């Protein structure tokens, strides 16, 4: 056996570092020929060893291999885009190692964007925050934006351009495209088809227009599985033109939602939640609150937040809308009867009429067009248009009915005229309505090109697959819900040589090789109104929004009468909804989103058939029963989940799951609801059959019990009761007197960190949970471990139901570590691994932890999380740059928990110290606080009596959870207030006559 000398990489690195230029290369050559290195190579590449021995090629091969290996191993790996991008907050002379920079960009989903600031550590984006200047964000973010950083570094992303699964160069692709286009030139592009998702990007639209100018016979189609077709169809019916509608909830005192989950779903949800919560804050004498009525078929986060909620089947919602429209005085609306209590028409209509011009009727994105028409008629009749309801020109470059578009493409395909099909993003093979048989038709296109982040279901059926850039890797532009344009700048050079949509589409033009930067900048150079383009450009990039690009409100009159009333459908109805996190399935390979518990069901890693308790009883179903769901002749097998608040005789399924080529994370999670979805029943349908299979399917949830057991945990009351006794929550919480201890009170000399969480503001969007996961390097554990109760989220949103299971109301309570003054966990740790800091933080010392887990047993809030295995991913190289360098990646066998983002506290303290000042209030934002759309979470120094958190803790609504244990938590809650309409005559949903309410587990 030959005694190998190990290659001393450190020595090699030192040797290379001292060499320069030509010398450098010479060193590499020398390096490649040393005996140690050849041995190293042979050991690393045993299969090559025989090749290496063979004569002539050996020297050359070794040199190449040696150089590339040495370079790969020895160079720094910062991947900065070549073009200039501008930091947002601070613009240092040069990058200071250890100091993160923030850059503004935007994340589009289905073409509609949220503005973001992305934290970058030495050129690696690590954390996404909201852009305070962006209308859809106002500094906050949704779940998907928070999780997008994981998608960027996802090792399963497509990494190479391929032709029929074989790796090809970009030049080869370009050659093939040009050849195909040459054939099209003669026939005006009659065989060219472009399929995109919804396009709002001005640059992209301009590119497509120029392609269509070049090939007039070519066609451009748009397909969007979760698109807003209903609203568009309705606007055509009602106004005679396509119109984009959004709502100014900051002006709305009364809101009626017709199957709209507007607080947590949709491109403007973050903004809506912000505006909604802003009108709900009760502070001191300011006791006015808005009121929310929700009529919906499935229990959503918005429905749980409602002051009054009415579960109705989708077809009944349409009839209810008609009846309400008639009651508010919409001309021509006919009466309709249904299974709802009378006050749901009378009292609601009166409440709306009392608030003419200050109310809003919001139709659900996925409700029928008739509901949309009726809602806009009501808004018109109530004088809301222009005040709470804003109409503008459409955001899309070309508004189109996505079903008709896809049908058109399928017809083209089937007629055999398509020579070259270019699909820009999207995954139509997976998402197309089942009856269109897109998958079968696709094969009839002679050349198929698919640009996509993943080598997905559609890529598998295409000739060419081009890896797409992540939005953090590419130049582009996009629009917000109100039309505001953001120019997206990349934070990092494409990790896998991906191409953006702009760069792909430019291959179809005469300028077939242009960078995304040139394309976008060139477009705006032509459009920019400013004299000094360079200044304008820098400003736009810096701010993350292009000024004055919001679409102007326009006045449109309702032209049509109310839609003909349709009879309520018989049989069990089915509603198709996008998954709240995976959306249409595009985020299926994102572990954070898969594991994030769904707002109401707390299901993780799976979707389910949501069935009402009464219906389940009728059909003899139990949660986790595997059933066969049959709809319009198509069948899927899926597990049942009994959802309190689901409308009886209706089921809701979420699509986006059941991917087969999503990647290692998303494959096999859940079932594919698209298999049931047809173009005639995109969102709602009737006549679904449910057949028990007799088998069980284990679902993983993070919360199994949704009843508070009469305990005062998430306290909620009513506005009226607050006016009578503002301290009702404190009375219930029974805080022991501070004298109840033998020890003298500890004096906090400097800061004393604390947090106040306003339960009235929390809408259960879970953005805080993902923000925390991203900030604190929290691992994903997988379905099996979640099922065992080992999820690692440091922050969770507890959801409790009250009232009857058929029609419950819900309370949401985010629970981070309480940082108790007298923390039970600290007392029992045998090795002082969890201890109190001088600022009152309950610190966790990972290095010292031996893992007795006693601290968790003794934590009444159960916020501690244990690394039962080595959950953190230490091995996947692509994930390593993602980790927050300020936070330890934990090993197995140690306890962890919320730290109040201590790394952010220290950072601010260091900055303050260098500037010779104290830390300002609001300077430190915890990750959860920063992400929260409604500003429900406030963090700060409670020793500073003027800080926001200290003032909130002085509010009469402020109480400590489990105060009776005398743990004296630093995290306190502001009790939830509801504003029920006395006319509705329902029993209040508050907690006041404590313990007397019907409660079921």
């Amino acid at each position: 056996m030959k005694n190998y000398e190990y290659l001393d990489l450190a020595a090699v690195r030192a040797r290379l570092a001292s060499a320069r230029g030509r010398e450098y290369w010479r060193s590499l050559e020398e390096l490649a020929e040393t005996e140690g290195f050849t041995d190293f190579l042979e050991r690393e590449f045993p299969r090559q060893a025989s090749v290496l021995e063979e004569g002539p090629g050996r020297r050359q091969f070794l040199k190449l291999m040696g150089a590339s290996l040495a370079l790969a191993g020895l160079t720094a790996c910062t991947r900065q885009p070549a073009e200039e991008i501008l930091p947002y907050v601070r613009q240092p002379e040069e990058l200071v190692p250890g100091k993160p920079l923030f850059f503004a960009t935007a994340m589009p989903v289905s073409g509609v964007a949220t503005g973001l600031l992305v934290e970058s550590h030495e050129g690696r984006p690590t954390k996404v925050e909201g852009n305070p200047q962006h209308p859809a964000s106002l500094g906050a973010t949704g779940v998907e934006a928070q999780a997008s950083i994981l998608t960027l570094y996802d090792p399963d992303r497509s990494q190479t351009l391929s032709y029929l699964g074989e790796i090809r160069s970009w030049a080869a692709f370009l050659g093939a495209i040009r050849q195909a286009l040459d054939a099209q030139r003669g026939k005006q592009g009659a065989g060219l088809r472009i399929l995109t998702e919804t396009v709002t990007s001005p640059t992209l639209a301009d590119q497509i227009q120029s392609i269509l100018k070049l090939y007039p016979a070519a066609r451009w189609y748009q397909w969007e599985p979760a698109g807003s077709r209903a609203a568009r169809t309705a606007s055509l019916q009602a106004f005679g033109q396509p119109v984009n509608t959004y709502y100014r909830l900051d002006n709305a005192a009364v809101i009626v939602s017709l199957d709209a989950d507007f607080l947590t779903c949709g491109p403007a949800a973050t903004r809506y939640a912000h505006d909604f919560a802003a009108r709900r804050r009760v502070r001191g004498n300011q006791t006015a609150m808005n009121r929310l009525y929700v009529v919906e078929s499935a229990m959503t986060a918005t429905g749980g937040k409602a002051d009054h909620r009415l579960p109705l089947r989708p077809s009944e919602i349409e009839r209810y809308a008609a009846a309400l429209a008639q009651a508010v005085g919409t001309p021509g609306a006919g009466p309709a009867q249904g299974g709802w209590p009378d006050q749901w028409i009378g009292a609601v209509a009166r409440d709306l009429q009392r608030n003419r011009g200050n109310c809003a009727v919001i139709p659900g994105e996925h409700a029928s067009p008739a509901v949309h028409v009726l809602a806009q008629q009501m808004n018109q009749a109530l004088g809301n248009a222009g005040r709470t309801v804003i109409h503008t020109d459409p955001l899309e470059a070309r508004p189109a009915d996505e079903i008709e578009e896809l049908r058109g493409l399928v017809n083209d395909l089937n007629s055999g005229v398509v020579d070259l099909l270019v699909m820009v993003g999207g995954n139509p093979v997976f998402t197309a309505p089942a009856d269109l048989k897109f998958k079968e038709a696709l094969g009839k296109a002679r050349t198929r090109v698919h640009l996509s982040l993943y080598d997905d279901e559609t890529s598998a059926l295409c000739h060419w697959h081009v890896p797409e850039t992540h939005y953090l890797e590419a130049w582009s532009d996009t629009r917000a819900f109100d039309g505001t344009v953001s120019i997206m700048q990349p934070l990092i050079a494409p990790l896998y040589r991906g191409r953006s949509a702009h760069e792909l589409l430019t291959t179809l033009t005469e300028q077939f090789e242009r960078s995304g930067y040139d394309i976008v900048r060139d477009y705006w150079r032509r459009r920019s109104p400013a004299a000094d383009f360079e200044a304008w450009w820098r400003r736009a990039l810096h701010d993350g929004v292009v000024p004055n690009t919001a679409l102007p409100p326009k006045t449109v009159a309702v032209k049509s009468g109310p839609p003909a009333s349709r009879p309520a459908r018989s049989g069990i109805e089915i509603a198709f909804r996008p998954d709240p996190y995976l959306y249409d399935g595009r985020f299926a390979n994102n572990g954070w989103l898969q594991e994030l518990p769904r707002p109401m069901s707390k299901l993780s890693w799976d979707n389910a058939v949501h069935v009402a308790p009464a219906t389940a009883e009728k059909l003899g179903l139990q949660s986790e029963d595997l059933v066969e769901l049959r709809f319009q002749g198509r069948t899927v097998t899926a597990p049942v989940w009994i959802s309190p608040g689901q409308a009886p005789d209706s089921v809701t399924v979420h699509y986006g799951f059941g991917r087969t080529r999503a990647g290692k994370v998303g494959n096999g999670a859940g079932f594919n609801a698209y298999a049931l979805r047809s173009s005639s029943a995109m969102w709602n349908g009737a006549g679904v059959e449910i057949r028990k299979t007799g088998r069980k399917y284990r679902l993983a949830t993070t919360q199994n019990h949704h009843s508070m057991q009469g305990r005062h945990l998430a306290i909620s009351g009513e506005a009226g009761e607050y006016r009578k006794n503002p301290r009702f929550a404190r009375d219930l919480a029974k805080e022991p007197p501070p004298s109840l201890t033998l020890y003298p009170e500890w004096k906090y000399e400097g800061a004393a960190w604390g947090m106040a969480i306003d339960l009235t503001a929390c809408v259960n969007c879970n953005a805080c949970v993902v923000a925390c996961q991203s900030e604190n390097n929290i691992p994903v554990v997988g379905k099996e471990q979640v099922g065992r109760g080992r999820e690692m989220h440091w922050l969770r949103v507890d959801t409790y139901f009250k009232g009857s299971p058929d029609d419950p109301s819900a309370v949401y309570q985010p629970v981070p570590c309480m940082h108790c003054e007298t923390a039970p966990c600290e007392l029992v740790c045998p090795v002082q691994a969890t201890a109190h800091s001088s600022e009152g933080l309950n610190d966790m010392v990972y290095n010292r932890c031996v893992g007795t887990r006693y601290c968790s047993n003794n934590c009444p809030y159960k916020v501690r999380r244990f690394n039962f295995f080595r959950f953190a991913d230490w091995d996947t190289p692509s994930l390593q740059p993602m980790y927050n360098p300020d936070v330890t990646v934990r090993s197995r066998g140690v306890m962890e928990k919320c730290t109040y983002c201590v790394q952010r506290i220290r950072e601010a303290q260091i900055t303050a110290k260098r500037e010779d000042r104290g830390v300002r209030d609001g300077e430190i934002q915890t990750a959860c606080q920063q992400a929260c759309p409604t500003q429900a979470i406030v963090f700060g120094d409670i020793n500073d009596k003027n800080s926001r958190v200290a003032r909130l803790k002085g509010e009469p609504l402020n109480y400590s959870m489990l105060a009776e244990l005398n743990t004296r938590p630093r995290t306190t809650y502001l009790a939830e207030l509801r504003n029920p309409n006395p006319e509705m005559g329902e029993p209040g949903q508050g907690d006041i006559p404590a313990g007397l309410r019907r409660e079921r587990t």
Partner: protein
Amino acid sequence: MPEQQLLDAEKGQAPVIGPGHTFATVTDKISSVVLTQRQPLMWFATLSTAFLLTMLLLLAVTVLFAKGTGIWGINMPVAWGFAITNFVWWIGIGHAGTLISAILLLLNQPWRNSINRFAEAMTIFAVACAGLFPILHLGRPWLFYWLIPYPNTMGVQPQFRSPLVWDVFAVTTYATVSVLFWFVGLLPDLATLRDRSQTRLGQMFYGMLAMGWRGSARHWRQHEVASLLLAGLATPLVLSVHTVVSFDFTIAILPGWHSTIFPPYFVAGAIYSGFAMVLVLAIPLRAAYGLGDLITMRHLDNSAKVMLGTGLIVAYSYLMEAFMAWYSGVGVEKFLMLNRMTGPYAEQFWMLVSCNIVIIQLLWFRKVRQNTLALFGISIVVLIGMWLERYVIIVTSLHRDFLPSSWGMFHPTRWDWATYTGTIGLFLLLFFLFVRLLPMISIFEVRTLLPEARVKEETRA
């Protein structure tokens, strides 16, 4: 029945030693088990089973160290499961040995002389099994020594407010004193074996262990003083060790744990399960080795009575626990008790009640106490019951505490079972090696039970 004939006509009790024994027969009988007798089939059968189970333990521990505590069923909120249950169970079993050897010595109960040796051995092996678990259950077991105060460069010491640190002291003290006591007690008998051994190896082995014991009056005197002193040391340990173990629970604020009744309740429970284990070991031993005249029905009867007594204390504690939960008026406490009785672990709870309270009532009847088979069965039931008691205390208290949102369930995995049965194997392996290599009954102490010994003393007086 032969057993009946042994009844002492006067007291209606069996004698502590069978008739017809002399000093020589006692020594012959006990030492022959080690030196000359062929081991009975039961020894081979038990030892090989125990060996296989010990191998299973090794496998389970290897997997545990390689992968982490996640191989067990523990989770959040039930972060303690089998490991701590087993720890408390084993420690409890050990208590009977110390009670018999120390307290009964001080209380001058001569009947203890024929069972104290193997009861002490049982204590040591049980403590050895118990001592494994606190280390195995750590997330990072290789750092267990951080619980021990020692001068270190980190400048950190254990946190002395934590009962887990008290545990370290309690258990190590207990183990040390038990081993010393046992070994000191063994010295005269080791010398006997040295003198009687026919092989060179045996003479060397026992000779070294006997540490030069020659049986001089001076030796005997010092031996007696040392034994009494160690008994005095061990006596408070019987009470303190399980009291400290119960602090592991009572210090916590968790409903079901936070209770002042635990120390006496745990001590009683420990002795209860300890005597059950004594019976479980004694009954087959005396049958297999024909030791019925040394471990007589009197011993079994007395052990059964201790079991009945401590069992009643345990029953009273259960009752008090339930009463206090109701009487306190604290919602979570009431809920806990109700949940124990009717919740998902109700089966285990009612099983424990029937094992620990209902079935032992049979011991009121002499007929049952005189029936070795019944006694053996009841002892097994008590051991199961006492294991369930700890399981119920740990799991039902943790699985549904203050916040319903965080409630969960504990389901043991096969590795939980493997580790548990593995330690039973280890215990039996050590015990049966002890039976083979050392005198399982104290020769010199049993000789003092003989009439000859008594006569001499009386005449001297």
